[in-house]
């Protein structure tokens, strides 16, 4: 459990896919990334994922914990090895690949 997380029950503990999306406020790329990852998750991972969207311009402290180099950044915490993808997540096949979902 992270100190910043005010939700008592951590949905991440139960989900198969644990994802984090780091964005920087209402920039076009961030908005696109949010929209895209929602769509992909609903389509390919419905009911099997937990997605936490973190706006680093609002929650600056979270940045410390992750190795972030550029934003927006998608991090797959599990399953398997941690994977990162930078960008607006508009290329679905690349996102699927990062999630380990590609054939």
């Amino acid at each position, binding site marked *: 459990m992270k100190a*910043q*997380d*005010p*939700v008592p029950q951590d949905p991440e503990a139960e989900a198969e896919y644990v994802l984090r999306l780091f*964005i*920087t*406020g*209402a*920039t*076009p*790329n*961030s*908005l*696109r990334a*949010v*929209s895209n*990852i*929602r769509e992909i998750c609903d389509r390919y991972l419905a009911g099997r994922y937990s*997605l*936490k*969207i*973190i*706006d*680093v*311009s*609002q*929650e*600056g402290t979270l*940045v*410390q914990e992750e190795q*972030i*180099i*550029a*934003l*927006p950044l998608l991090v797959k915490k599990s399953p398997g*090895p941690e*994977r*990162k*993808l*930078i*960008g*607006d997540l*508009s290329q679905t096949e*690349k996102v699927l690949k990062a999630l380990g979902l590609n054939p």
Partner: protein
Amino acid sequence: MERRAQTIEDLLRELEETRQQLYEAEETIEAIRTGQVDALVVHSEGVHQLYTLQSADHAYRVFIEKMSEGAITLNESGLVLYANTQFATMIGHPLSGIIGLPFRNFLTPESHPAYDELFSASWSTDVKAEVELLGTGSRVPVQLSSTALELIEGISLCVIITDLTAQKNVRQQLEHSNRELDQLNKSLEASNHDLQQFASVASHDLQEPLRKIQIFTNILSNSCLHKLNADETRYLNKVTASASRMKELIRDVLNYSKLSASEERFTRTDLDVIVKELLEDLELMITERGARISNAGLPSVDANPGQMRQVFQNLLSNALKFSRPGIAPEIRITGRKLLHPGFDSVEHPEGPYCLISIQDNGIGFDEKYIYKIFSLFERLHTKEHYEGTGIGLAITKKIVDKHRGLIQVHSTEGVGTCFEIILPVLQPEKKPA
């Protein structure tokens, strides 16, 4: 030696990891190159610094974050793509529990129809609606104000959320104080009524015993004045003088209260004629004091002639009364037309307002007493030296008020006093009841 302990699998995994890192790095560069990256994070000496790539909108982002309204962006299916911190504060959820969820989830069920209507209409026009947010433990009344924004990647909805709690509280408070004011007005009316009742009683019932005092002292002094010594005569004279002063007071109170009750009936009144008649009435006092009075001419106005007469009577007799010992009173009356109802107004021969000023060279008074001078029973000068009931100026002010006019006074001790009155030349037609 450790290396040797590694298995082929370990090596393959390491290779895969390196390849993956390379892939991610290539992807990052590709993302930056194609403009998909908003910010870079630089780690140096344990500090993380955020460098935004689109600094042009940075100011707006700060603005959105700092403003006291909530701000959200919704996509075409109503999911929250972005929310500012203020919105999170309004509903008491962390931002991570807002973004990506349908905005509808944060509204009370009662608000859903209004929101749905706003949401469907917003794509073609700007829409406002009042709804309630589900805050933590309380409902927050808000106004939504939405605008569709067409971006390269598609259309989204920008919604500004204004907290109406304070506004509603203010409205309630306003209603409350309005009610209180109403109550106050009613009791004021009641006490005004009481006051008039009192004045009426005073005028009739107090006058009666007073009249008796006057008559019987009169009879007494007629029949036995020759039998009284000097002191006794003086005492009797004091009784007579006090009685006539009391009569004056009662008369003035009655006049004042009648003013409150009277309806205004205005007719075209030539103020010049009124002043001329008054000067004839005051002739004795004027010659007695060797006063010089000049009248530069006054206009005709819509007014109550009797009341206007009273105004000039009060002001002129004051000017005569409060003269400096040994200095003949000099009184100057002037009239001018003004464009606006204000003492700083521009003069204009056809102006709809007239300014009347009455300037004397009398004893004057300290201007710090100005606020007192128009109040009932206020006397600035001891009555030993200057007679009067202290009601005259209160009556004057009331009459000017009734004529929708203004009155002000300037004075310098030992130099003189100047009263200025502004009256509308025309009064509005009285509507038949």
